[in-house]
């Protein structure tokens, strides 16, 4: 089924209380701000948010956290100069954190999207982030077993979509978008423009439409 073009409000109604939501972006680059704002407005709660960071300033993800909708954050780099919303919730014990090295975070979502049951990663071996995890020596090197991270919904930002849902991105705003698109039951892409099928060069498509369910224009 090809992607549906919807309002942000209608699109985020896919999110249920308690869902795991993958949120694209690296800082503000690639952050689907309109979708996050719509999710705050919509009111789903008890969410697990998977994203590289845990919100900056008082808008976007930080606002979702501040609104008390998030139970747990899975991310690689929560602490930033302007992450005061997360910092306060964490210190008050009001939010759970699973800290994941950035490459493992990306690969765990890639594994989910690719149907991989689990994989052995060399990242984190000998560190506190590998404690309690199964490990194995393969060809003389130690690896840690990492499990997939699957989302109920992915909120990503791309540059241009065609009506079927094929996506291209812009510069480093691509970041987690293509991986998250594959790893969720429902993928919602906020895009700057939607064109007719045939207008995107098939050789240049980064995320094929099979991974994209809903398109939202600003």
């Amino acid at each position: 089924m090809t992607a549906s073009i919807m309002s942000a409000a209608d699109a985020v109604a896919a999110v249920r209380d308690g869902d795991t939501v993958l949120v694209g972006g690296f800082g503000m680059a690639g952050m689907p701000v309109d979708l996050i704002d719509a999710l705050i407005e919509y009111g789903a709660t008890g969410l697990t948010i998977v994203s590289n960071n845990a919100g900056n300033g008082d808008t976007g993800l930080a606002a979702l956290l501040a609104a008390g909708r998030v139970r747990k954050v899975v991310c690689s780099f929560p602490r930033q100069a302007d992450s005061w919303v997360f910092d306060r919730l964490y210190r008050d014990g009001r939010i759970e954190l699973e800290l994941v090295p950035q490459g493992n975070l990306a690969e765990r979502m890639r594994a989910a999207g690719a149907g991989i049951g689990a994989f052995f990663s060399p990242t984190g071996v000998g560190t506190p982030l590998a404690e309690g995890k199964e490990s194995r020596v393969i060809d003389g090197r130690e690896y840690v077993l990492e499990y997939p991270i699957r989302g109920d919904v992915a909120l990503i930002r791309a540059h241009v979509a065609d009506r079927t849902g094929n996506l291209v991105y812009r510069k480093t705003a691509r970041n987690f978008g293509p991986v998250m698109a594959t790893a969720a039951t429902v993928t919602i892409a906020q895009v700057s423009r939607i064109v007719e099928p045939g207008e995107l060069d098939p050789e240049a498509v980064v995320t094929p439409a099979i991974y994209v369910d809903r398109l939202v224009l600003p």
Partner: protein
Amino acid sequence: MSLSREQMAEIVARDIPDGAYVNLGIGQPTLVADYLRPGSGVVLHTENGMLGMGPPATGDEVDPDLTNAGKQPVTERPGAAYFHHADSFAMMRGGHLDVCVMGAFQVSAAGDLANWSTGAPDAIPAVGGAMDLAIGARQVFVMMSLFARDGSSKLVPECTYPLTGRACVSRVYTDVATFAIEPGGVRIVETFGISDEELINKTGIPLVPSPFA
């Protein structure tokens, strides 16, 4: 006559082979880019999905969709390529990246790296891509002041801070000396106004003097 951060960056840049694919960590290591020789063919990787990263963007060049790992606006060089995060970290983990340069809280004599957490109970942990870089890049260069504010050495027999990676650091560039971590031990490559004896006393490591000293 200890070195300034800029002088340290210049020395690191000198040791990066022509044509290498290199990741420069956030903060001090970013300075290394200023000292790469034009025409060296070194290609900079940024973990958020780009090879061929150019200098910081200024004025009209600033584009919110084009940033480095520190989320600062940057530019692209001719021949640049963009890719998603799983690819970006596959490049590291898969051993395709020649060199990464990172800061550190501590480096051990065995090349263990500690640079993400001081283990303080009230600290908010954040690791980013440091663990992936530490074990992935073929050579890990550390750039740091040798002594902490309290005067203790950050090159240590064993790390007391939580590790980022085990036995991964190959070179340590400090303001008073450069060290090579080799199978035979830690070798002093070069000193800047400090004696080998003082380095051995302060680090508590049986350092191997440089044959070229």
